[in-house]
């Protein structure tokens, strides 16, 4: 197991380098630049600004300097757009925000999604099953950019229970609506996967044997069915967890939470090269890390898997 983890970590290094190089090339291939606007800069001013950010040097030198600064000094550079901020500063400010609401959304989605899926599978073709399936389908066709305004309408404007947006250091009442809005579609997906996988397991031979020997259903589900049924869920959870903790553009823009979710889109639209790279590297590294975590958990849940 340990050698497997080390091997995977070693493979991660070239993966990251390929990610950086490909992103860099794609970024510069896109037309425009960080300093273009409807009022074009006079050439002398543009030259000064480009020199300030090293954009006047050849691409190869730029990318080498960029990688070197990260490896040698853990320096991701200044933001090209937000002149008062560095990339590390922006991520240090935004990532804890998305981590907070993403984590809670994950907890809610997993706890509620798995419970709902299991309950639906155990009581297949009952009202509970129909309700769960209906909810799951409803949630997947109700995207969060539709759900979020509905939540605000109900909980802010009608009931006046929760604020419509803002973050204020992650005070609980500011976190609730973003968590619900983010969790719902994941919750639905988890419930669906759990239900179908559970149904498959419940129809397999070893469960029939357990039933035949007279074990109560509760014990069968808990002791024998749950673990194998969760395997497909687990492979969904790895990328889902990364997606949730790195935030959502919709949540950040709608609830003004100030997370890094919006940096994905804004930095690309602004051609804020350094922020775009910083966020890409962050998400890339987290994706690699959590895929590894999922693989390790696989081995723990399913004794048949050996590395």
């Amino acid at each position, binding site marked *: 197991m340990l050698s497997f983890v080390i091997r995977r970590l070693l493979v991660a290094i070239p993966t990251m380098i390929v990610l950086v190089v490909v992103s860099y090339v794609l970024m510069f291939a*896109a*037309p*425009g*630049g960080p*300093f*273009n*606007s*409807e*009022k*074009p*800069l*006079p050439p*002398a*001013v543009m030259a*000064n*600004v480009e*020199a*300030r*950010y090293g954009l006047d040097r050849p691409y190869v030198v730029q990318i080498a300097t960029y990688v070197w600064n990260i490896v040698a000094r853990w320096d991701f550079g*200044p933001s090209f*757009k*937000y*002149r*008062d*901020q560095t990339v590390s*500063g*922006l991520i240090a*400010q*935004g990532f804890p925000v998305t981590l907070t609401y993403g984590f809670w959304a994950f907890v809610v989605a997993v706890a509620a999604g798995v419970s709902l899926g299991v309950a639906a599978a155990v009581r297949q073709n009952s009202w509970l099953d129909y309700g769960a399936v209906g909810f799951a389908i409803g949630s997947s066709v109700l995207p969060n950019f539709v759900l979020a*305004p509905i939540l*605000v309408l109900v909980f*802010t*404007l009608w009931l006046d229970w929760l*604020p*419509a*947006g*803002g*973050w204020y250091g992650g005070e609980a009442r500011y976190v609730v609506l973003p968590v619900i809005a983010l969790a719902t579609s994941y919750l639905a997906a988890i419930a669906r996967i759990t239900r179908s996988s559970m149904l498959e397991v419940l129809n397999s031979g070893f469960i029939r044997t357990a039933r035949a020997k007279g074990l109560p259903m509760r014990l069968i589900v808990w002791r024998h069915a749950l673990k194998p049924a969760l395997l497909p869920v687990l492979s969904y959870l790895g990328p889902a967890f990364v997606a949730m903790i790195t935030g959502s553009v919709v949540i*950040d*823009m*709608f*609830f*003004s*939470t*100030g*997370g890094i979710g*919006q940096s994905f889109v*804004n930095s690309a*639209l602004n*051609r804020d090269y350094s922020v775009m790279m910083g966020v890409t590297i962050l998400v890339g590294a987290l994706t690699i890390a959590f895929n590894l975590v999922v693989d390790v958990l696989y081995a723990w849940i399913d004794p048949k898997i050996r590395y």
Partner: protein
Amino acid sequence: MFHRSLCASALALLATGALAQPQLAEGESLAAEQTFSYNVIDEFVTLDPALIEVVDDNDVARQLFEGLMNQDATGQVVPGVATGYEVSEDGLTYTFALRPEAVWSDGTPVTAGDFVYAWRRVVDPATASPYSWFIGLAGVENADAIVAGEMAPDALGVAAPDDRTLVVTLTRPAPFFPQMTANANLFPVPRAAIEASGAEWTQPGNMISNGAYVLSERVPQERIVMTRNPLYWDDAGTTLDTVTALVINDENQAVTRWRDGELDKTAVVPAGQFPALKEELGDETVAVPNLCTYYYQFNMRPDATAALQDVRVREALSLAVDRGVIVNAILAGGQREAYGLTHWATAGWTPPQLPAEAMTQEERNARAQALMAEAGYGTGGEPLSLEIIFNTSESHQQIAVAVGQMWKQTLGIDTTLANQEWQTFLDTRKQGNFEIARAAWCADYNEASSFLDIATSNSEANDFRYVNPDFDALIDRALTVSDPLADYQAAEEMLARDVPIIPIYFYASNFLLNDAVRGWPMENAQQYWYAKDMWRVAEQ
């Protein structure tokens, strides 16, 4: 040699000792909590006055810092750090007298040397300010050469013979120069704080400022909080205690939070909602002029589409655009029909009588059809299909669809529409890969030349490549005469004859404003607002 040139209204205000004391009506009283909160759509780019380019940053800087002159509620220049100025007879030397009571928020006096330092810093290539050209635009001696790296920053035409006197030397008369000193780029900056904290100097705790407010909180992508500066020279005349700016990307969500009472002012009214909100909220739904003009530009490069090189075709296309439909049915938020480039609310501007403006739309259409027939295109002539490009946005799309239909119906011209992502769009325009492109221009200062300058042949913004030496000569001359209005009018008439662009509408700003907040400068065409001149009344 010198003559006083402070406007009378400014002197009158000075005499009363305060610029804007709260004016309370019968039965009104000041609210106990003197707060004001508003939203912006995008995160603030920078609070360093030298680097500031965008309106939102300028708004914050105007609360935190104070330049030589301010603007009042109607856009007139009034004293700021300077109590007044004298201008030499040739209009090239401005001498500002600085008020002795002006201090930084750490108690040290604001000196003429602070302005010299700040202005040199703006043009210094090492600062790499994207707005460094502004001081050159203002006409300050050697500014452009310093930006280009040909001269040292200390060659800039600004000097401090003593702590209370600032002398500015211009290369050409610029009657709008005092007005430009209300722009953030010409604000003083705290040398000691910048040298101590480097790029971090704009963070709360590091920032020293000289305005009516100081920066007390800044959370990127979330908010900026400014609180009253007790050391500000006119603190006694200031009423609002706290000003909060929230970053809210979603326009509709800002309206929701305004309804919830969290915001006093929204950045905008979402497109298309102005009439309904006006109906519902009355005077709290505001439309004020905004010095920007929306236009379509023709690609005037000699190798571009042949039909568009024919001025009759261009004029016909311009005449066939029914601006009334666009302004009243599509935008419906206080915008006005445009036939010229210079915004109607521009200071000192009287538009010339342009022929197209005087006609009814039926007359315009008839003339457009005649011109197009003469040129031999469209209905009954050679078929013509044109492409309009615009950056992705619902309202640009709506306008392009409407214009396409108008051209089809009136002239029998086909159009295809192509939307592009913003940066791609700018690149396409710059490369000249278009036939007709959407464009807009916002004034950098409140004078007609800020608009007309874009059509001169060496302007960076002239990516439609209109080249007319007569037009260039007019604008050049206008900058040196004492009353340039006639030249500007002649320039507008020339544009109307040559039709390199189709002016479509003059912008208006729409927003929601809580009626408990008073003193918003509705008549200031640049919307330069000062929280120190505003107050909040108790809700009845």
